[in-house]
């Protein structure tokens, strides 16, 4: 009898999760992944992302936040668990993992193509350090990559596509750089070029890996304003960031992650000393510094000393 009720409870729980999953744009359940056998980077990750959410993944280096992004966009295949993209559910088992890690991976279709009908598209902005900025391409060519499969078979960019590219660049305030080589741009402008490449396909969901790393204060604010504006128009945004104090505290929804999800919700509820301690392993003194920083962030005049505190926190994390 007891067994039966336990079984029934399990079924009810599963039904509850299925119903919840259907309402979400993205649902992740019991996800496990690692780069080396028996050394999981992510364990038992459960996350629901409803349409229109602006979410920041926070965690120290090696916490698995970028890895989770790469799983969502199909660059890594998890060991187990499932991801539901809208109504399309992809189950991962050990079998799938063994296929991906063998020569048979040549014949496995990328997840993006499997779920292509669910999302009109995913816009992805990688870390700007991930490419060689000396590469001989112009801004137009880079943005054009975002619609490579919709812009004809010929090698050049059509007039229509050029106008479309120009329009996206204009929205981001970099229209005059269209013909420039990417090397000639500043870090913030390069970041906006990547953003333009992601936005040109009108994605439902925008995924950004550390969009504010290595950029100055003004650029960070500029990028944050652009993202807030896109989100206000209904775009779902998922981003990773190291920047708890400058950005994390101002995001509508944050997820603290370190191998598994530690906590999630609005920053005021999530960024508590207890959660920061669990996520970053920070000492209480450092947590206090972050609290101090919060006070100075709410004040538009940022002092050099508060910047110093910020960097101090970053270096503590690295160590």
């Amino acid at each position, binding site marked *: 009898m007891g067994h039966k009720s336990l079984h029934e409870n399990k079924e009810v729980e599963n039904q509850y999760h299925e119903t919840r999953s259907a309402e979400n744009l993205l649902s992740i359940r019991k996800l496990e992944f690692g780069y080396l056998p028996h050394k999981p980077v992510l364990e038992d990750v459960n996350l629901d992302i409803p349409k229109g959410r602006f979410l920041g993944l926070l965690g120290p280096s090696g916490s698995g936040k970028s890895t989770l992004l790469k799983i969502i*966009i*199909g*660059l890594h295949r998890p060991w187990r668990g499932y991801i539901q993209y809208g109504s399309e559910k992809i189950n991962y088992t050990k079998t799938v993992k063994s296929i991906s890690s063998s*020569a048979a*991976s*040549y014949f496995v279709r*990328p997840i*993006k*193509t499997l779920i*292509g009908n669910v999302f009109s598209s*995913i816009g*992805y902005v*990688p870390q700007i350090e*991930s*490419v*060689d900025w000396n*590469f*001989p*391409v*112009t801004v137009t*060519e*880079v943005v*054009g*990559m*975002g619609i*490579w*499969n919709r*812009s004809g*078979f*010929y*090698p*050049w960019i059509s007039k229509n596509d050029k106008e479309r590219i120009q329009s996206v660049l204009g929205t981001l305030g970099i229209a005059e750089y269209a013909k420039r*080589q990417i*090397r000639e741009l500043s870090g913030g402008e390069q970041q906006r070029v990547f953003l333009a*490449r992601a936005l040109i396909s009108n994605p439902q969901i925008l995924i950004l890996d550390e969009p504010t790393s290595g950029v100055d204060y003004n650029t960070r604010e500029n990028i944050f304003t652009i993202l807030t504006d896109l989100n206000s128009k209904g775009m779902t945004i998922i981003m990773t960031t190291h920047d708890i104090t400058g950005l994390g505290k101002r995001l509508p929804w944050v997820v603290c992650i370190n191998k598994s999800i530690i906590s999630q919700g609005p920053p005021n509820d999530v960024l508590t000393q207890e959660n920061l301690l669990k996520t970053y392993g920070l000492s209480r003194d450092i947590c206090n510094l972050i609290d101090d920083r919060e006070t100075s962030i709410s004040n538009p005049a940022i002092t050099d000393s508060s910047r110093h505190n910020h960097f101090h926190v970053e270096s503590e994390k690295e160590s």
Partner: protein
Amino acid sequence: MDFLTPFDYEFFTRGIVAAVLVGGICGLIGVYIVLRGMSYIGHGMSHAVFGGAVVSYVIGFNYYVGAAIWGFLSAVLINEISRRRKIKADAAIGVVTTAGFAIGVLFITAAQSFHRNFEAILFGNILGITDQDLYVIITVSILAVIFVFFFQKRLLFVLFDKETARVYGVRTEILEIVFALVLALVVIASMNSIGVTLLAAAIVAPAISARMLTNNFLRMIILSSVIGIVTAFLGMYSSFFFDTASGSTIVLFGAGAFGVSALYAFIRKSYHSHSHGPIKHTHPHLHTDKHLHKH
């Protein structure tokens, strides 16, 4: 002697057609190789293919098909080893391709009596190419151009940002395999005219010369192909008058083109137009940190 004298000889005309086609496709494919940071692969692949050519000749298999299969397998092996990330691509190229070359040398020394002159493959003998060789060069040239034309957008995306290309649905692994096959075919087609020992320069020199002249990818492809064609023509043509080896002369013209391009890039950097209010003028000057023009 008339400047058109060389064209009175059929073997020369055939040779110059072959050289121009080979120069063009080496220049075309070279762009992708140089930007992929695998300049050494042209050198390695040509050595590996030499092994395949010798082995297939000895066992009585079609010379071209054997070399193509061998070259393709070498390229796939290099890709696979460097994909694992534990060993870098240059080390993988070094081992795989030199082993292929060694097998070729081993077969030659083991059986001394060959009708085929393998020196032509090593150092190139463009004046001795047969009609069959020319047909192979023409076919490979057409295939290489078709491949680049239809796959250009995907190739550019993968070269610039492979990870994001995968997110946007580019089948990167398959693209790399197809590229390896095209490269193997280009190497085989070029083997008899340039020679396996000189081929690397014919692939790399036009591409790096073009890189010096432009920051635009499509323009770089066109320039590299044109430089390949022009240097091949000039090298071939002058080898007739200087009575020098055609492959070596073509490669030296390629190296010369790089020297001229590098010099041009240097002069352009330091000597270019700028304006002070309404006055626009040109003269050599230094650029300081804040881009102030000091005269």
